[in-house]
């Protein structure tokens, strides 16, 4: 017995708010970067400049949507869609509040991992289809990066899964009613957050689109709304990373006094601000540094963390 109207309403609310938030995030990021660089950022259009994203959107819709003659047309066109679709699909399993989730899958964590891995394909085939050296270098870096972070991303969030005893994200949140998983799983949190930054192509792991070196990396050849889709997809993956961090390690919607949705939003905004702060403060790593750091430091730590967590849970169970 599924209440279809309830599901449809949830889908509409989550889809609408995700896309609006992703658009607004562009403005939020520019304002916050401004704050941390002692300037204002866009403050002209609307109160505090909050309509800047709207103006950007109107502008980007009127831009020429150009497909380079040397590109692989079919692949080139579907790639931006993959970014946005995979990011939005992941939101289907995100529980924002009790019973406020599109699909309460019992393998929610695995679904999230699968979708985020699929998103990486868009970068790879987008760079390949562009038939451009810079885009191709960006894709190469994305692949190298993928091989290093994807492994310990899964392993480092398994600690939370073991503690909750379930792959269902709502169960994981409910298991944190008394203690957030960030305390027993601090190493897991660090590993997951780092992998998430690499997944969302954010500083310090934004090598696939390193502006200073590769023009715009894998989306150098994209213009108009196709570029806009990449952009929105990137901000959606920031939202997704913050949401997943909150759910897995920071108690999801749990919190005193305020309603669950507000707590979820506040925690999520905290992580979004942290991600933007990291962009304002940290330099970009070389991708061989990410590779060696991922394989030699984070991967063993995540494995030890998994082993110890598993051992402790078994020992407590007797």
């Amino acid at each position, binding site marked *: 017995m599924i209440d279809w109207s309830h599901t449809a309403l949830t889908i509409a609310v989550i889809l609408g708010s995700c896309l609006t938030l992703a658009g607004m995030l562009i403005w939020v990021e520019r304002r916050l970067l*401004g*704050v*941390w*660089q*002692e*300037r*204002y950022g866009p403050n002209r259009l609307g109160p505090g400049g909050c309509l800047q994203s709207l103006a950007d959107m109107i502008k980007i819709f009127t831009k020429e949507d150009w497909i380079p003659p040397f590109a692989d047309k079919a692949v080139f066109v579907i790639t931006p869609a993959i970014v946005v679709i995979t990011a939005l699909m992941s939101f289907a399993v995100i529980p924002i509040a009790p019973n406020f989730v599109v699909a309460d899958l019992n393998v929610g964590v695995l679904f999230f991992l699968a979708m985020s891995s699929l998103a990486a394909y868009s970068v790879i085939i987008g760079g390949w289809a562009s038939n451009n050296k810079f885009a191709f270098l960006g894709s190469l870096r994305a692949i190298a990066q993928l091989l290093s972070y994807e492994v310990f991303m899964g392993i480092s969030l398994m600690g939370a899964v073991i503690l909750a005893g379930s792959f269902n994200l709502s169960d994981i949140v409910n298991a944190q009613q008394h203690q957030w998983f960030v305390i027993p799983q601090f190493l897991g949190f660090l590993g997951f957050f780092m992998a998430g930054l690499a997944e969302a192509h954010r500083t310090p792991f934004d090598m696939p689109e390193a502006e200073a070196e590769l023009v715009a990396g894998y989306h150098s050849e994209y213009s108009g709304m196709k570029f806009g889709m990449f952009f929105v997809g990137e901000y959606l993956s920031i939202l997704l990373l913050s949401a997943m961090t909150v759910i897995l390690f920071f108690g999801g919607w749990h919190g005193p006094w305020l309603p669950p949705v507000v707590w979820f939003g506040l925690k999520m905004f905290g992580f979004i601000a942290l991600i933007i*702060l*990291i962009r*304002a*403060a*940290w330099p970009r790593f070389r991708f061989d540094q990410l590779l060696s750091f991922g394989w030699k*430091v984070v991967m063993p730590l995540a494995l030890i963390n998994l082993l110890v967590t598993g051992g402790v849970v078994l020992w407590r169970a007797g």
Partner: protein
Amino acid sequence: MMNTWIYARNLVVGLWIVFKRTFTKPVTVQYPEEQPYLPPRWRGRIVLTRDPDGEERCVACYLCSAACPVDCISLQAADNPEAHERRYPEFFRINFSRCIYCGMCEEACPTNAIQLIPDFEQSEYARRNLVYEKEDLLISGTGKYHDYNFYRMAGVRTRDKDKGEGEHELPPVDVKSLMP
């Protein structure tokens, strides 16, 4: 291992230093609403000034035009029969789309006629509107030098005084006499 620790500490310290900027005021000047302070010697728009008597200072000597590194000043000298055949610019044209605001014309000017003033708001939609003619350049005031009148100091004859009768002038030396 020691290095890893130092790197990690540096990253966290860097994050904290940037975060502290949340509580500082932006240094941005919100330009159209908030006008920046320009010093009096700011080199902006070029004007042609008049002397305290209200006459044009420019004597059309072409020194500004010759000094201009980008050749943006163009003028034509003419004699004014009403004022002792005195030279004046028949036309005076500055192409501000070429001007680099270096101030060399002002340095070259012997009569303080051409001056750069603190005004930089010269945006135009059409490039031809940046070519200023004499009537655009000539102002009614004296600019930066309020009391300076070239003819009063140069020892030449003017409408109301003869040679050597000016304020800082000595009487003309009789070059034919042997006496000092």
